[in-house]
């Protein structure tokens, strides 16, 4: 799971990976984010940006400002327990979602596949707080954990050419949200009117690694109303600090 000593892996001449383990695990992911925070606080000259993922951190640097040897030394010194940074308490972000119908055309399939009724699928999908392990792949896309195996469903055999932004889907034992219109093979069970990515917003991504999200079932009317207030900037996303 977690390595005894973090490993440095080569990422070419301008990036280096620090890998903490080889598993999808909340504690391991927490170490990655703590280390990212430590690097940010240390303000190491020549470090350009960092990308936290499930179990490793990719550090981009400018070798004209800091050599890879100097960087590794600086990173090693941040691995001492006394420089460990405390993370902020995670937030729980509420994702209003309309389930079924034109918004979630595959929900009946998901129900049938798992010998459940559609309302049981919604009940199971909305009862969990899903940890956000990382944001990546495309702008604003959250990699979520924690879905009940009771609603796991294989992907579509033939991906759809176009999936609307905000679509909520299931692929195997994962659930996720499409931030933008794109092709995809996930089984669609619903759609949120929230905008997961907005380049004019700071931060541009609605969701952050380390936070949690919870889906809340809404009606199509509520969907339309929320979408409108999101568009004119009057919607405030419901979030609570988790203890």
């Amino acid at each position: 799971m977690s390595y005894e000593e973090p490993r440095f892996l080569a990422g070419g001449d301008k990036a280096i990976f620090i890998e903490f383990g080889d598993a999808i695990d909340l504690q391991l992911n927490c170490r990655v984010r703590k280390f990212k925070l430590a690097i940010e606080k240390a303000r190491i000259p020549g470090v350009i940006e960092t990308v936290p993922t499930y179990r490793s951190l990719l550090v981009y640097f400018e070798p004209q400002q800091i050599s890879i040897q100097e960087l590794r030394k600086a990173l090693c010194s941040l691995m001492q327990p006394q420089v460990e940074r405390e993370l902020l308490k995670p937030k729980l972000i509420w994702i209003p979602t309309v389930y079924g119908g034109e918004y979630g055309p595959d929900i009946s399939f998901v129900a049938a596949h798992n010998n459940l009724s559609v309302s049981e699928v919604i009940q199971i999908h909305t009862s969990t707080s899903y940890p956000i392990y990382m944001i990546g792949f495309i702008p604003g896309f959250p990699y979520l954990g924690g879905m009940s195996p009771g609603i796991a469903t294989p992907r579509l055999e033939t991906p759809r050419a176009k999936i609307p932004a905000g679509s909520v889907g299931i692929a195997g034992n994962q659930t996720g949200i499409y931030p933008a219109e794109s092709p995809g093979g996930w089984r669609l069970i619903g759609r949120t009117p929230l905008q997961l990515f907005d380049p004019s917003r700071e931060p541009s991504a609605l969701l952050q690694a380390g936070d949690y999200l919870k889906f809340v079932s809404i009606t199509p009317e509520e969907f339309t109303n929320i979408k409108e207030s999101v568009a004119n900037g009057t919607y405030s996303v419901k979030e609570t600090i988790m203890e």
Partner: protein
Amino acid sequence: MQTFEVIQPGPLTTIQDLGRYGYQQYGVPPSGAMDNYAFRIGNLLVGNDEIAASLEITLFGNQLRMLQDTVIAVTGADLAPALNGDFLPRWESIPVRRGDIISFTGLKSGCRAYLSVTGGINVPKVMSSASTYTRARIGGLDGRALRKGDILLTFESIPALSGARVPSEYIPKYGCQIELRVILGPQDNYFTEDGINTFLQSDYTVSAKADRMGYCLEGPPLQHRTTADIISDGIPLGAVQVPGDGLPIILLVDRQTTGGYTKVATVISVDIPKLAQAKPDDKVRFQQINQDEAQIALQEYEQQIQTIRHQLNH
């Protein structure tokens, strides 16, 4: 200040600078010029900072009308540029007048040309960069490639002296065969010894699937030990990703920020411009080097750009 009118956009012309940094943690790739060398030299030729926004012109067919007297430079690929139908020299600063027509009439060598203009192109920065990322419609002109009828603004600036020219020894030649130096890792241990040897000793061909996101190669597949899948991690510029079919994909400026396939190696930064100028059917070979050699190569590259900068200033 209105400077260009797009008469014909060509297949893909975008506004780029040197990229958008700090947002990969939110899934936003850096984007920016594919050919860092040609882009920076172009700006130096017209008296700009190296980072000023310029046009990246892919293949031929682009045509622009000047709405302003200014100074431009064309670097990178030889797309047979012409000024009012006459030969337009590349790697040189050129005075242009209002009403002049600049056109890219054919594909002689390379793949991407850069058109730099004194002052640089003026578009609102999105997440601190003017670079266009078309997939998420971010940056540039409304996040998209240029279209017929677009008017491009530039910043006011003291016009550069025209006639500045890059010495010929610093002008790259774009052939059909490139050698890319790589540093092995992060997942080279996922491949068999034979797999690594295949990678380093074979000729690969650039496939039709080659764009700003990445270049898919064709050739002998690399053999994995057990699996091509990893727990998704970050993807550096130049990462050579190898999915289950064993065929390498080199990931570039518009790449996905994270991914779940093994990465056998990373192309060193100074060799990315060579790949940026490669086209489908061109041949690629990989050569393994170590970190120290890569650092020396980068120092030489940056030194060369500084030398050119000094020569242009005299």
